[in-house]
Each structure stands twice: as C-alpha cells, then as structure tokens.
C-alpha cells in the first residue's frame, strides 16, 4: 500500500507524449498543475478546477480525463498525452489542421481541451453524426465560438482521418 503523509512528497514517474519525466509531488498536487508547473507543459489549460469546463482535458492511459480532477500521485507510471503531443514536429495533426481550416477557435483557451476530447472521440467513433459531435463537444465549455466552428472542424477532421486510413 502506498502511504504519503500530507507534508511529504512522493516521487513519481510519468510518460508524457512519449517522454519520461520524474517529479516530487505532495498528495494534493493536481495533475493539471503538475503538467503545467512541474513539467512546463502549459498547453493544458485550467479553466474552472471543478470538472465542468474541460479545458484541462488530457489522455491518461488512452482515456480522456479532466486533469484537474486527478492527483499527480494517481498517475505514477501512466502514459499521458497532452495537446503538445498532437503535432509531429512541424506537422500538425489532422484535427489541428481542420480547426485551422474551419475556424474552430477564436481565443483558443478551450481549444486544447476540445482537441483532446475530440481526439478520443474520433478514435472511438471515426464516422460520427453531427448530433454525436455536438454531444461530445458539450463536454467542453467554449465562450467564443458558439460551437459552430468546433463542430465543423471535428466533422472535417473525421473526414481527413478516414481518408488517411
């Protein structure tokens, strides 16, 4: 059994976007803060810190989760994917290309979370209906776009990804 007293730090190892990192974290250290502040991966955004807005969405062991609702100690040994892991060097992921081409963002604050949620969604549901895309997008709060550009972009990304298969 792992036991970490509140005043102590626990050594953890995580693999983020294929790179292994080590950290020393208090039990209460949120994964969102660990990624941003301990690892310098500020692509993951913090909007509400209570699981509503989805800006902090990352993939943990292949599943999209709200990183503000996970403690870093809980992901010791896990594989994490953040928005920084979408592009391959200069080559954007088809989702990112689609958001660019179809104006899927304005201020961009919600966008990392939207992309990571859409990444999982399209992986599990490669040929979605518009309704399904809208239901998925409902898990992320966007104050700028009114969602039309987001929905168009995700549908376009689905087509791109299908074509690539």
């Amino acid at each position, binding site marked *: 059994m792992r*036991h970490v007293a509140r005043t102590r730090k626990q050594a953890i190892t995580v693999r983020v976007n294929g790179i292994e990192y080590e950290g020393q974290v*208090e*039990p209460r250290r949120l994964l969102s803060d660990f990624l941003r502040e301990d690892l310098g991966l500020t692509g993951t955004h913090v909007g509400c*810190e*209570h699981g509503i807005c989805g800006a902090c969405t990352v993939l943990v062991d292949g599943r*999209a989760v709200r990183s503000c*609702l996970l403690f870093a*100690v809980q992901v010791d040994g896990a594989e994490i994917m953040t928005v920084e892991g979408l592009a391959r060097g200069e080559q954007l992921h088809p989702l990112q290309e689609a958001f660019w081409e179809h104006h899927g963002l304005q201020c961009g604050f919600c966008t990392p979370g939207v992309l990571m949620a859409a990444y999982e969604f399209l992986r599990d549901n490669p040929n979605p209906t518009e309704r399904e895309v809208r239901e998925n997008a*409902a*898990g992320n709060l966007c104050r700028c776009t009114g969602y039309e550009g987001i929905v168009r972009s995700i549908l376009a990304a689905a087509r791109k990804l299908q074509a690539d298969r």
Partner: protein
Amino acid sequence: MKPAAFDYYAPDTLDEALAVLAERGDAAKILAGGQSLVPLLNMRLAKPEALVDINRLRELDYIREENGWLAIGAITRQRTLERYPLVRQHLPLVADALHALGHAQIRNRGTIGGNLAHADPASELPAVLVALGGELVAASVAGQRPLAPEEFYLTYLTTTLDPTELLVEARFRLPTGRHGGAFLELSRRHGDYAMVGVGVQLELAPDGTVARAGIGLCGAGPVPIKATEAEALLVGERPGEELFAEAGVRAAAQAEPESDIHASADYRRDMVRVLTRRALRLALQRAAAADTQ
C-alpha cells in the same frame, strides 16, 4: 482553488482498504473516480484529513450476470458498464441513464460505486437502481452487509454507510420475459445535471398485460423515489396511452421536488408527469420489439 492537504493512502487489496478505513474512516474520504469528490476538495467545500484511493482495487472491477442479477463491482467505470454488451442490447434503461450521465471524460473515470454512494439527488444511477430493483453491498473489517436502496439512501448526499465502510458492489435485478426500459431526463444541455429524470422498466406477461413495472425518479426529492402508486396502477393492466398518462400523474404526486436556480418545484413535478408518460411509451415500444430473454 487548490485542495487542502491530506494524507494519502492507496491500498492494493480490499483488506488493506478496509483496515485503513477501520483506523481512519471517521476523518477520511474514499477516492474512487473523483468526479464528484475532487471538485468538492478543489473548492474546499470538503477538507478530509485523509484520502483512501481505491483505484488499485481491481478485484472490485467486474460485471457479472449471476442468478438473475447484474452484479457490478464498485470501482467499475461508468464507461465500462455503458459499453457492456448486455446493457447496450438488452437494458436500454441503464444505457440511456449512462448516456445522460455527464460527458465521456467523466464516465472514463467515474465509477458505479462512487456515483451510487455520493447520493446526489439529481443522479441517474440511484433512480435506475430503484426502477430495476436491486441492492448495495457494504463491507468493513466486520464483514459485508446487503442494503436495499431505501435502507441505503438517507437524504441529500447522505447514505447509511458507516465511515469505516466501503461500498463494494451494486446489484441490479435483471428483468425477465418481454421487457423494455427507458430513462429520460430534463437538463439544459446534454450532460448537465438533471433537473429531473425518470427511469422506467416494464416486463410484459404473455398476454400483453404488464407483469411488472418499476419507476424511479431523480431530481425529485432528497433521495431517489420509487413511484409505487404509478407502478401499482400499471400491474395487470393492458398498456396504453391513457394508462400511461394516469401513471404520470401518480408519479408526479409522489415527487417531492424543491425549487432552485434551475427549476421550480412545480415545474419539476410537472416534468415528472410528462417524462414518466414518455418513458413508459418508449419502454413499451422497446418491449414490443424485444426478443424474449
């Protein structure tokens, strides 16, 4: 905001978890999916001295069909149950309810046991439990005990679980014969908390009359409500529009909703009436289309 500091335990076995709870249960909270607990911690609405992280207890991650029951281990992710073939194909009441539960990211972590034990009055799964019939199993170092929903749910966010106890299993009664179910909820947007929700399970006799009816309400009171008067109206009768409309009226009469920022009590009560009728209609369509079990 950031959570207050806490001691962290991550037991590897159920016995270890129960031992920690025996020692520190009074001051500890159980961390399962964290989708309800961690927001409370982050907003400092709760400041437990210790968290007992039960996510390593793979022995509580299971779905088993046994003797007419669907037994679900407490740490089973909501997503796992959503995708379980029996649920997708034959238990639309459960499938509908899970589809309405939050969003995919929440269901990826959220657990069946955590949701049931958190006892949010707007939560879908307690209403499903009440509609299908079922029981909960609590464990401590002293042993295990089964609890019927009416013994388990006390009031808002409060169950009869002792601080040293852990919910280990939820059991849903599997319907028999020609059956159909449905769950409908009213929320502003898909995935929001339900303003009110109704879960219905119908089992039809060979002659087409209702052999058994289960109706569970959420968002309609401090605990999930079994609409017993509506159920009693339906049993033995030939299903139809007028009957369903009357069942809706009776279900609404048993609701005890409150007014809040999202909806008035009157509106909630009226929506219980409407959703009950619609859910019964949908459940009947599905029962008519279903193969016999």
